């Protein structure tokens, strides 16, 4: 199959061998689960259970609110201890509302929805509803509610469902293991999603550094003529949605548009498996496979763990840490988020937990820019990081926006390649955050103005009404007087 080149990118040290040959192992049930109400992009879920309540495995704990949201389910049976705010799996460490569940170890199952009997004869809507009900979100890391993405075929003609098995981030091997061990579930899930989308073709794209996964998928997909498996060149960030679409189809997604606008929808391999489980067995998304790796971890593993597991328990399950790690990261080393501690829960979007040593992070104090142009060559988006960073340093955010800082993926290629170790990505994240905050402030200002104007109008009206009433009273009084006088 013909592939198309993508711009820029880098070839980092992948270090996947730390965990790639470790089969997926289930985690013994933790003592407590902390299930955040917001684990996805969109509105947070609304808790449906109260402290003290007994819940069963798979029971709905919180329902989605609004068009873009996702529900949460109980990964185990047990008692709700509290619904409280605790630090979340986020670099800010800000407290987020969470449901604290104490499992009783009985794994008593709640009644699950019936499997959809003949899903390919069912209306696409039925599959989308099941996916929405099951709380499935993008498991590649973005955690966008999958049902919303499966509805993209309604307004647009789609021709390809692209299943993303690139896993281009170093260290991470959870997708690789899922592809090797659950290829049939992935292929079935992909076909179900294609049916929901109305897309005639399925392409499963895997980076060529996972030959076993490609082989197994090829064998599994062989009976289905509309499912193809393609090996991608190993190049970071091949797994970026837009770049993956370009590499596979040659189509370039216009800025501020969706890949669906050019006929392609992308879902992660683990999401495909979750869809398979939801449709065929009625299972909600309560567990995920996560890679625990890094030089500071005694025994890196791929673990299937309940959502809400404290990360410290996952690391302990891997034999703990051998040395004090330099950085703790949730996700991959390139785009993952730093963690202040391991006392935060595993969420649906967590693909990896990394404890990295000083040698691995290779951090260094930033030096002056020597304008080498490495960042320009590395940027897969065609930006000029050196120029953007210089503008942002002086807080010329509007000029940085004009040069496309909001088109930045934060893939980290530029910062990785910078010989002066300038934290380019942080400059861009800062600029994007500030621009966003400014837009919010502007909206608030406009709202205030509208409210103030409405109030002034109301006061004026009230005053006018008062004047009119007074005038009427006076007129009445005058006419009454006149009446008195006339007779």
């Amino acid at each position, binding site marked *: 199959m013909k592939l198309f080149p993508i711009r820029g990118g880098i070839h980092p040290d992948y270090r996947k061998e730390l965990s790639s040959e470790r089969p997926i192992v289930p985690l013994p049930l933790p003592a407590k689960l902390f299930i955040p109400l917001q684990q996805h992009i969109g509105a947070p879920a609304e808790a449906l259970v109260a402290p003290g309540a007994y819940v069963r495995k798979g029971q709905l704990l919180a329902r989605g609110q609004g068009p873009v949201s996702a529900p949460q389910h109980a990964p185990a049976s047990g008692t709700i201890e509290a619904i409280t705010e605790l630090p979340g799996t986020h670099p800010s460490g800000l407290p987020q509302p969470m449901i604290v569940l104490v499992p009783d170890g009985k794994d008593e199952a709640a009644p699950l929805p019936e499997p959809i009997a003949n899903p390919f004869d069912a209306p696409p809507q039925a599959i989308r509803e099941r996916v929405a009900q099951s709380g499935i979100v993008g498991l590649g890391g973005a955690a966008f509610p999958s049902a919303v993405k499966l509805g993209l075929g309604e307004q647009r003609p789609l021709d390809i469902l692209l299943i993303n098995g690139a896993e281009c981030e170093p260290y991470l091997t959870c997708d690789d293991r899922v592809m090797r061990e659950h290829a049939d579930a992935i292929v079935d899930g992909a076909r179900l999603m294609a049916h929901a989308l109305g897309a005639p073709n399925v392409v499963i794209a895997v980076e060529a550094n996972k030959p076993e996964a490609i082989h197994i998928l090829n064998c599994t997909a062989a009976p289905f003529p509309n499912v193809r498996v393609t090996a991608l060149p190993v190049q970071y960030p091949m797994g970026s949605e837009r770049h993956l679409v370009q590499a596979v189809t040659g189509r*370039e997604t*216009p800025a501020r548009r969706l890949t669906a606008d050019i006929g392609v929808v992308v879902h992660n391999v683990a999401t495909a498996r979750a869809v398979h489980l939801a449709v065929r067995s009625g299972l909600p998304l309560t567990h995920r496979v996560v890679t625990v790796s890094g030089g500071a971890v005694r025994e890196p593993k791929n673990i299937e763990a309940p959502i809400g597991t404290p990360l410290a328990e996952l690391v302990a399950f891997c034999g703990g840490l051998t040395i004090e790690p330099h950085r703790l990261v949730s996700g991959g080393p390139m785009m993952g988020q*730093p963690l*202040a501690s391991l006392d935060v829960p595993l969420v649906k979007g967590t693909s990896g937990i990394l404890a990295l040593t000083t040698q691995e992070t290779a951090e260094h104090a930033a030096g002056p820019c020597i304008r*080498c142009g490495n960042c320009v060559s590395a940027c897969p988006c065609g930006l000029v990081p050196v120029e953007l960073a210089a503008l942002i340093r002086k807080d010329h955010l509007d000029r940085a926006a004009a040069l*496309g800082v909001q088109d930045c993926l*934060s893939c980290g290629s530029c910062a990785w390649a910078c010989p002066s170790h300038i934290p380019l990505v942080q400059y861009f994240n800062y600029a994007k955050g500030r621009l966003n905050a400014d837009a919010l402030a502007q909206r608030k200002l406009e709202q205030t103005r509208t409210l103030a104007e409405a109030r002034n109008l109301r006061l004026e009206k009230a005053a006018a009404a008062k004047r009119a009433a007074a005038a009427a009273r006076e007129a009445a009084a005058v006419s009454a007087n006149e009446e008195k006088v006339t007779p």
Partner: protein
Amino acid sequence: MSPISPERSGPFGHAPNSVSQTMIAVLLALVPATALDTWLFGWPAILLFAVTVGACLAVEAACLAVAGRPVMAGLADGSAALTGWLLAMSLPPWAPWWIGVVGAVFAIALAKHAFGGLGQNVFNPAMVARVALLVSFPVVMTAWVAPQPLSSPDSPDLSRSLAITFAGEHLDAITSATALGHVKTELTRGIPATESVTSLPPLRDMALGLRAGSLGETSALLILVGGLYLMARRIISWHIPAAVLGSLFLTGTLFHAIDPARFADGGFHLLSGASFLGAFFIATDYVTSPVSKSGQLVFGVGCGLLTWIIRTFAGYPEGMAFAILLMNALAPIIDQYTRPRIFGRRRDGQALPLEEKA
């Protein structure tokens, strides 16, 4: 700000590179040519080389100290050593010691630190120094000697070399002309380039370095080896050297074909003068060249054309330094016009149009 917020965002990994590693690689690439040339020009060249590099390091240290920046870290990045090295390679090998010292002040203090230090200078420091010296001290800066290898009996011994470098011993007797200078002088006397070239050493010797000139002007071949090494290590890309040499060669060849009596041919332009040193080591200076590949091509072609124009029509026989400085001044504006196209957008920054039928 939240107190437990980790202070740094990703990525949490880095390419095995750094500024000092880059500079050291460039220095390594210069070693073969430098070794040959110091052997060809003997002790005076070695002394001048040491004085120039030492002076650059000293001036760098002084500037950093005055600016209140860490001195050792600044010296360790290797940029001052590289500037000194390149400057030394562009001087007449038997020039007196003070040329190296004055050059170091021009290069490091004026061309680099006055602009804000590493990464901030508009012009290549070594070339600023060379041009400033050439304009200020034309006689000393054009006193070239023919190669007298260390092994030859004519090569001055250490004590005489010390006298040449530090006591200003006269060189009149051995002054020779560079190839470019020779052709230019002969042209002004009405002797066509075709004839004057024949009285020069053959191109093969020029390529190997057996001719008069500065350290870096001679031995084009070893400079080329160093340049290829840098490309192999991906320190530099092919864009600037290919554009400089290609445009210089093509222009030279074209005009030579039109009027062989007036214009030297392309091969001569490539192998004489500092073409290779300029193309591989000076024009590719990160700080003073454009950052995008297309910009680098424009920059390189500009350098090549200007070099040819200056060599052919202007008063100075060697135009590489001037050409690079002129293009340095244009680098920021080239950068502005050669930004890559943003993913999903047209060149003018508008989003790509959606095709009607995907």
